[in-house]
């Protein structure tokens, strides 16, 4: 009985996903300009939010370094795009980010979680300052110009990375590494005593999550003609994915995606009219979400759903 209803929901959701996939894939042939950029933006933040959840969701180690990896992607695109083919640039950005994240992880993930959080918070400012300094001393410039790509190309690249991110997140979650990560998040000491190499697991998955962030950064950079450290390494880029994941819910992969769409849209609408007010509101929303909806809006939805269904069978 139960399995039949389960697979029916399964089939329906897979069908819906397939439709969305096809629609998104064909979009550049139907429209261009405004809507393409908009959907591209949704995808960009969905990538960041989902990538953030890959590591910080199960473990509870809150990474605030998203902006660092994203910005790294920016700079690699700025340095390499043009002479180096676009696809290679994206891949290089991912690899570079992996290496940097390995370093950050190896440094902090063998210590208590609070050190990790503090260092990832500080690292955004650090890399900002370092790049500024390097530019001042070495290249004598401030910021760089980027060889741009067309809107359609960037869109497809973002689409591809979004698919890769979602699929990877799903596969990690289901794999033994996802189980190891979840065990670490629930009881790190017991996980270690059950044979899990806790530090290595954390570091590798943290580094993996950074890859997608850098790729997204590399792609977006090619839609700007000029970038500088302030644009590339901005604390807000670390903040927004957290807000989106918290609001949407970290229980499954749809939560961060929904959060990404909602807040990208909201941000876009408000950006021109109230630039300071909307960030203030976002800050408030994060506080409210953590306080009243710790499982996000999807979690809340699930609770309501369960209450509704259980209501029929519940004893008086």
């Amino acid at each position, binding site marked *: 009985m139960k399995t039949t209803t389960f697979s029916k929901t399964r089939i329906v959701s897979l069908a819906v996903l397939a439709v969305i996939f096809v629609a998104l894939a064909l979009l550049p042939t139907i429209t261009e300009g405004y809507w393409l950029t908009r959907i591209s933006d949704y995808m960009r933040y969905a990538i960041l939010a989902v990538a953030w959840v890959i590591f910080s969701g199960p473990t509870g180690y809150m990474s*605030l370094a998203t902006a660092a990896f994203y910005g790294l992607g920016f700079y690699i695109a700025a340095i390499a795009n043009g002479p180096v083919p676009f696809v290679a640039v994206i891949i290089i950005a991912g690899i570079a980010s992996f290496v940097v994240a390995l370093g950050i992880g190896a*440094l902090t993930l063998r210590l208590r*979680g609070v050190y990790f959080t503090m260092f990832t918070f500080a690292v955004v400012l650090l890399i900002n300052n370092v790049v500024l300094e390097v530019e001042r001393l070495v290249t004598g410039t401030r910021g760089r110009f980027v060889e741009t790509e067309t809107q359609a190309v960037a869109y497809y690249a973002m689409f591809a990375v979004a698919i890769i991110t979602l699929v990877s997140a799903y596969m990690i979650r289901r794999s033994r590494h996802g189980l190891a990560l979840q065990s670490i998040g629930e009881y790190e000491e017991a996980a270690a005593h059950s044979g899990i190499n806790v530090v290595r697991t954390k570091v590798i998955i943290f580094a993996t999550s950074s890859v997608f962030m850098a790729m997204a950064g590399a792609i977006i950079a090619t839609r700007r003609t000029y970038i500088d450290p302030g644009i590339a390494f901005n604390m807000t880029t670390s903040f927004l994915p957290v807000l989106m994941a918290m609001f949407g819910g970290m229980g499954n992969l749809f939560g961060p995606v929904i959060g990404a769409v909602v807040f990208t849209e909201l941000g876009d609408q408000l950006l021109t009219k109230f630039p300071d007010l909307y960030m203030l509101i976002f800050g408030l929303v994060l506080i409210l979400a*953590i306080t009243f909806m710790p499982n996000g809006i999807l979690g809340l939805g699930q609770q309501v759903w369960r209450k509704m269904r259980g209501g029929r069978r519940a004893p008086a």
Partner: protein
Amino acid sequence: MVVVRDIIITGLLLGGIFALVSVGFSLQYGVGRVLNVSHGEFIMLGSFITFWLLGSANINPLVSMLVSGVFVFAIGWFLYATLFRRLMDTSPSIEAFEGKSMLAAFGLLYVVQNLARIIWGSQTQNVIFLNRTVTAAQIPLNRLVALGVVIVISALFYLFLARTRMGKAIRAAGQDPTTAGLMGVNIHGVLAICFGLGLGMAGVAGSLISTVYAISTSMGLQYTVIAMIVVVLGGLGSVTGAMIGGLVLGVVSQLVTYFQPTMTFIAYYAIFIVLLLVRPKGIMGK
């Protein structure tokens, strides 16, 4: 010789400010278990309150210091009694609370920073106060006064922690909240006061900073990072450690600034990284 003296005085002053900032941060995390990433924003708030009071009502910054301190203390007390208390009550473990409260503080960062930006704009401002130099020594008077204030506050705070009942309660709550509660300490009251104190110190520090340096509504982040580095340097959870760490970092910072001003921040990070590699426990860490 003049140079050395200048470096030492400014180093001590900066160190004192760092210590003040970090002791506040340490109180919030060590006792309250809140990693307050918005700490720097309250420093900024203290700076701008002073700026505003001076500009609109010509109030002496030394008085504003008190006003900032009390005002920000009240905000901190209120935040803990409402927001963080609720998070504490709904968290299954202390780790869950630490995670949630850090994220809530992240939200607070954007609230406070943008509130300030709406009210005061994004430009850099200056508080003109005692800008004359003491003729014999060629040191700006405001720096000497600020240094004096820092010393007085630190001494008062140390006495508070060591001698008063509330101070002892705070130390007890920091070491073992459950037992402290069993011993009759009103834990939630103490934690709220502690958090308020920590934040209040940020307000006072901000006030001080505004008399000596230029301020802007985006200045908060760097102070939060400095507080983090100092607290790791001094030892997480140790208030004395935060004081020592602050002084050390301040003097080191002035040395670096003297030789290569733009490298100062990078020096902070180098220290941070070395600490994490070699001795994350810090100076006073257990």
